[in-house]
């Protein structure tokens, strides 16, 4: 809003009006894992990297693929295929590591490929149906209905959150 202070009143109104419209749009990064296209808010994405060597960490949860060196920082990487219970596939050059920040943790996850950056209006997002082709709806925040396809909006807090981990631990302990 630094513009607003220098501009005349009319300009201020115009800018803020435009911003409201902009701000209302959801800015998403979309990527593919298995047969589905997923989306997460662009603001939570730190960076997207090509595949690099991932160091396995023994005794970590099964869906944790290992750790990577992100410019001197050790970051865990989750295999989304494993997380969603999908079969393992061969790596290819389209594979990426998406690094996100969730609840002040920095976490990476592997995806088959990254599609695009999208802006969609929030009103086309609907609550998640009970079941989406094998992906546990627990991680799904909603479904975006685009003209030609469906986008699954992921709830990253649930996907990587502490409650999830606690549940994991309970499962392994049992």
């Amino acid at each position, binding site marked *: 809003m630094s513009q607003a202070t220098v501009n005349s009143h009319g300009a201020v109104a115009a800018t803020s009006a435009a911003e409201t419209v902009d701000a209302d749009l959801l800015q998403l990064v979309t990527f593919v894992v298995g047969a589905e296209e997923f989306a997460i808010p662009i603001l939570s994405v730190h960076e997207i990297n090509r595949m690099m060597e991932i*160091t396995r*960490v*023994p005794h970590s949860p099964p869906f944790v693929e290992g750790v990577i060196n992100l410019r001197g920082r050790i970051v865990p990487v989750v295999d989304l295929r494993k997380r969603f219970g999908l079969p393992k596939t061969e790596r290819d050059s389209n594979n990426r590591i998406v690094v996100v920040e969730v609840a002040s943790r920095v976490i990476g996850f592997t995806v088959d490929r990254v599609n695009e950056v999208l802006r969609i209006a929030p009103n086309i997002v609907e609550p998640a149906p009970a079941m989406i082709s094998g992906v546990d709806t627990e991680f799904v925040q909603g479904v975006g209905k685009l003209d030609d396809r469906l986008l699954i909006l992921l709830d990253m807090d649930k996907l990587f959150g502490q409650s999830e*981990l606690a549940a994991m631990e309970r499962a392994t302990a049992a």
Partner: protein
Amino acid sequence: MTLPGQDPELMQEFLTEAGELIEQLDADLLRLESEPESKELLDGIFRALHTIKGAAGFLNLPNVTAFAHVAEDALNKLRKGEVEVNELVADALLRSVDVLRDQMAAVSDGEQPPAGPQDLMDRLAAIARNEVGPGAATIAQTIGESEAATTSSPCAAVPLAGQAEPLELTSEKQDVLPFMVDDLRATSDEWLDAIEAFTQADTRGDAMTRFTAVAQSLRSTGEYFVLKLLTAIASRIENLVQQGAELDANVVDELVPRLQVAQQLVSHFADGLAANLIYSWPLDRLFERIDELIQGKMPPEDAQVAPEGGSMEAVLLADGIADASALAAPRSAAKPSAQATPSSSDARIDQASSGEPKERDRSATNAETTIRVEVGRLETLLNLVGEMVLTKNQVLGMARRLADMSVPHDFLENAGTVAGDLDRLTAELQVGVMRTRMQPLSKLFGRYPRLIRDLAKKTGKKVELTITGGETEVDRSVLEQLGDPLVHMLRNSCDHGVEMPEQRAAAGKSELATIHLSAQHQGGHVSITIEDDGKGIDRKVIADKAIEKGLTTPELVAAMADEDVFRFIFAAGFSTAAQVSDLSGRGVGMDVVRTNIAALGGSVRVQSVLGQGTRIEVLIPLTVAIMPAMMVGVGAHDYAIPLSSVEEIVKHTDAESHYVGGRPVMRLRERVLPLIDLRERLDAQDEPGEGSFAVVVCAGQEQAGFVVDRLVGQQEVVIKPLDDTFTTGGPFSGATIREDGNVSLIMDVVKLLRAGDAARELARK
């Protein structure tokens, strides 16, 4: 920080300083018990308390101020020798320190500190009531005392005797006067800091902010009490701030000593007010010169003080505040005060140069040799050095690989030299940065005499703690993690090791037991020993208990060396104490010792002779952030094993494995070591390599052979935390980045050894 209306930075500074002062108080009070006559100690204690009180007043922490005030009163009596330092008094004072510590803890949590406990305040007040002559005479005497306490210093020698008049105030204002005096002293201290900042061009902006605060404080006090001196000085400072930081260097040189004089005047003025006196000095010329200097106009040449070294005396002379004869001998007051006789008023004024400025002066000189740096900055530096070590490792790796390529010989040689230089410089830089983080162990050790004293009192034992090697330095992170283990070990020595006086006497020992705490450097390690002359550890008691707990079998114990048997005292839940006291006996302490020491990559040894005493030695590496490691390959991945835990490496084939009780072991010369197959422990999924090695590791007194596939080599590794919840839990203490930029995990040898125990337990069941 949620205390309203406080500058968090200022508050933090106060907390740091108060923390240090409290530590010092603790130590000094303990010494006082053995040297109750020491005036010097009493003065030190008084000063520390006074500083806390002053700063607390400035930061508007009335409960702290009020409590410190009561304690100060009591101390005053001691300083005058009117009250003797006995155990009761010392107890009250030590408790006061605890109260202050609690109050500081509250402040640091952002709460208003609690009021001091009433019973303690009453006791302190009772000590203080031995007072003889109340009123002005006492105050004068107090000031005199504090001056006598301070040794000579250039600042205290500046005679600032002025004219004195009695201060007449309404009772309402009279009530707030003590607070005002405190406030004024604090302001004057702040001012001193501001002046120091002002002398440096780069901190001048900061000085301006401080000046503004000082001026505000002076003005509000001055206006409320109608004190022209304060308002006049406030105006000068305000003008200076308005003029801004743009001043010529020579103007600054002239201005600074004058500001210092004005600051001193305010400080003395405050002392006068404390005695209900208003001092006045002929200050017209000083003010005039300050005004001109702020406008950028230099004073006439004969009134320039900078060429004279910018001393305050020079200003006093040049600006006619004092004349030469007054500088030689204190001037008598022209107008005797109505309340006091001329002679007593004289004495009072001369004595008015209290301890305060002198102490400040000393800290100012200290400031040149040491500076206080925020820990965060050092952390950043260390992280950067860590990055640099990694990059250096990569460069060295590249330089090595060059040799395999067809590059011109001279280029290769050059690259080798440059890489070598980089290696050496990085190593030096690393050492340099590490050294900035080193702190003397005395920071920890200083707390222990108190601990032992309290413990001994509680248990009715007579114990003396002697300390040597407190100056030994270790990395601050090491220091932090050492605190708890040392407390536990000392408690143990005092509670279990040392006998009751009668028992000692019966055993022909002196009733006074000694616990000796010592530290010294040993190569890249620091060795800390705790030695007592108590009853020692009974091998049989420990062995029986260990068998009872199922930690071992009678056959195994029979073959063990004493040291190995004593090692059981570190097992979790192991306590031979028949009863749990509030000191120890829950069997947690020694486990904490082992865990913390192991986390630092250190080891513990216990030696004991029944009836003669116990000696516990802790060996820890100097630093924990960067360490040498042995890189080994297990399956497809490389792992780092801290070199401090590696004893030796031997070639190992499966054929050499033996099994004892279903567990794989290896024979190494005369010893039989358990073997831990890392492939199995780390779930390596790929095919094993042809040759394998056994890395013989040692943590504390546990030893084992780790079977690995490959040896990669020795390397300096920078420890990175592996602290995400997804990656904790494995037997790793962290991760590091290799030459090729990929990550290797650092093995936690202790966890691996323990997990072995657990696995064995399971197997046995």
